């Protein structure tokens, strides 16, 4: 029964994690995995150093690690670097929080009102495929040239996977759990908090991870295109002024932010889903 429900749901909600995969794929690597991941980074750096030393590519294509490091240490001494990072982190944080909360609420509403869900789902799914950046000019007209167009559009990007995952997760609750809630005389609130949301937790957390990733992608891409502040904007500015070393330094900063965000969410997931593995 549950299997059939999930089956029916899958084609529409393309960005949800299939139940079989979610049990394994989402786990943080164990000690062995962590070492091999770190090893891979070291290897990449070694290749970078060796390749630059052997002049396999020109300084204009990919600057030497040394030049990037110099550019990086110079950049962090400027107020601008911290202002850019702060701006991006703030935008990502707002978009992530807003998208997660909005997505959770909409997912719950769709679950409670399946007709509304059926009506909106196709739009939600196809909205996924629309590059949000297209709406940037419209947003500027509406809210002005500041950080808000970035925040709003990134929120929309983060909201969609969260809403779809929440909805799929709630629809996949085993009927016996809802029956248990009913037999105990649980009210709506109790059923939602004690049964429905914990039961859907693997999907909620998968949605949360996607929301984080999309918020970051959205913010950087939007900044890159048109904004007047933030890391994305700075990367584009540096690119246009041929300052490759500093540009690569900024790109690596995006890597670090992305790694911090996904690791934090993976840790959260591991903490909240303990005991559920292998079922």
């Amino acid at each position, binding site marked *: 029964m549950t299997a059939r429900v999930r089956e029916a749901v899958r084609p529409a909600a393309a960005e949800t994690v299939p139940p079989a995969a979610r049990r394994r794929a989402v786990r943080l690597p164990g000690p062995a995995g962590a070492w091999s991941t770190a090893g891979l980074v070291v290897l990449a750096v070694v290749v970078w150093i060796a390749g630059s030393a052997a002049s396999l590519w020109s300084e204009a294509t990919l600057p030497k690690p040394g030049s990037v490091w110099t550019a990086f240490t110079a950049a962090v001494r400027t107020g601008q670097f911290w202002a850019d990072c702060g701006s991006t982190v703030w935008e990502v944080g707002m978009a992530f929080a807003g998208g997660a909360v909005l997505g959770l609420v909409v997912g719950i509403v769709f679950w409670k009102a399946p007709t509304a869900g059926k009506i909106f789902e196709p739009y939600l799914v196809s909205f996924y495929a629309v590059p949000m950046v297209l709406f940037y000019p419209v947003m500027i007209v509406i809210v002005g040239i500041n950080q808000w167009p970035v925040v709003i559009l990134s929120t929309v990007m983060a909201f969609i996977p969260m809403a779809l995952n929440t909805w799929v997760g709630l629809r996949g609750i085993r*009927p*016996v*759990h809802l029956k248990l809630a009913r037999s105990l*005389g649980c009210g709506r609130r109790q059923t939602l908090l004690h049964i429905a949301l914990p*039961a859907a937790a693997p999907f909620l957390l998968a949605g949360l991870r996607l929301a984080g990733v999309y918020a970051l992608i959205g913010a950087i891409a939007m900044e890159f295109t048109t904004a007047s502040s933030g890391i994305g904007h700075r990367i584009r500015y540096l690119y246009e002024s041929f300052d490759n070393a500093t540009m690569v330094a900024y790109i690596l900063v995006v890597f670090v932010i992305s790694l911090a965000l996904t690791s934090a969410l993976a840790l959260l997931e591991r903490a909240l889903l303990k*005991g*559920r593995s292998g*079922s």
Partner: protein
Amino acid sequence: MATAGLKLDGVTVRFDANGDDEPVTAVDGITHEIGEHRFVSIVGPSGCGKSTLLNVVAGLQRPTSGTVEINGARVTGPDRRTGMVFQEDSTLPWKTVTENVVFGMRVLGVPKGERAARAREMVELVGLQGFESAYPSMLSGGMRQRVALARTLAQRPSVLLMDEPFAALDQQTRLLLGAEVRRIWGQTQQTVLFVTHDMSEALLMSQQVWVMSYRPGRIIDVIDVDLPDDRDAGVVSTPRFNDLRNRIWESLQKEAMRGFMAESA
């Protein structure tokens, strides 16, 4: 004469036509009583409305007509005087054994201090000592049903409803768990309504067996099980057990065939 623990009076449940489905009378005018502390099994073919009847007693399903009384007071909605053990695994995978056992009590508002004491007692009663902080994913199907049983017993229901609780388990686990439930019932003395489609299980477990017909679901035979109270699985080889089994099968055979024909049509 024991007081009526559970009294069914003309209980009828009709499901309206739904799309292609014809209207179905799942339960038809069942009027029966179960004395307090008695253990009654219902056997019947698949689709005879056994589970529907249990749902009515639990207050999960409103009868189309008729009433259910527990200890003289009517059941009007989900009723905390009943506790239900389901066929499917109903343990919550995000909670440990103890947390699962506590869950029912927490929802029902049992004071915190008492919950812990009762949980300990029930975990011991169902034989899960040492697994208190295990998660269901680490337990076998039989052990998960023990957890569900402990959770239900911890709620201290006066009527224990069991909806084919062993159906998903293998034969040996069923026998063992059946004997456990009887032992536990000997201690807790609840009124038990136990649904099964296994005649031997019904005879091994209960003091009385109700045979239910295929739609419309009626009680077509009531058999008092006069086997020894301390019976074990060995009782199946006694002549008396065979007589009782044959009598149930006589009533059940026709209904099972009717159900089979209707379901496969």
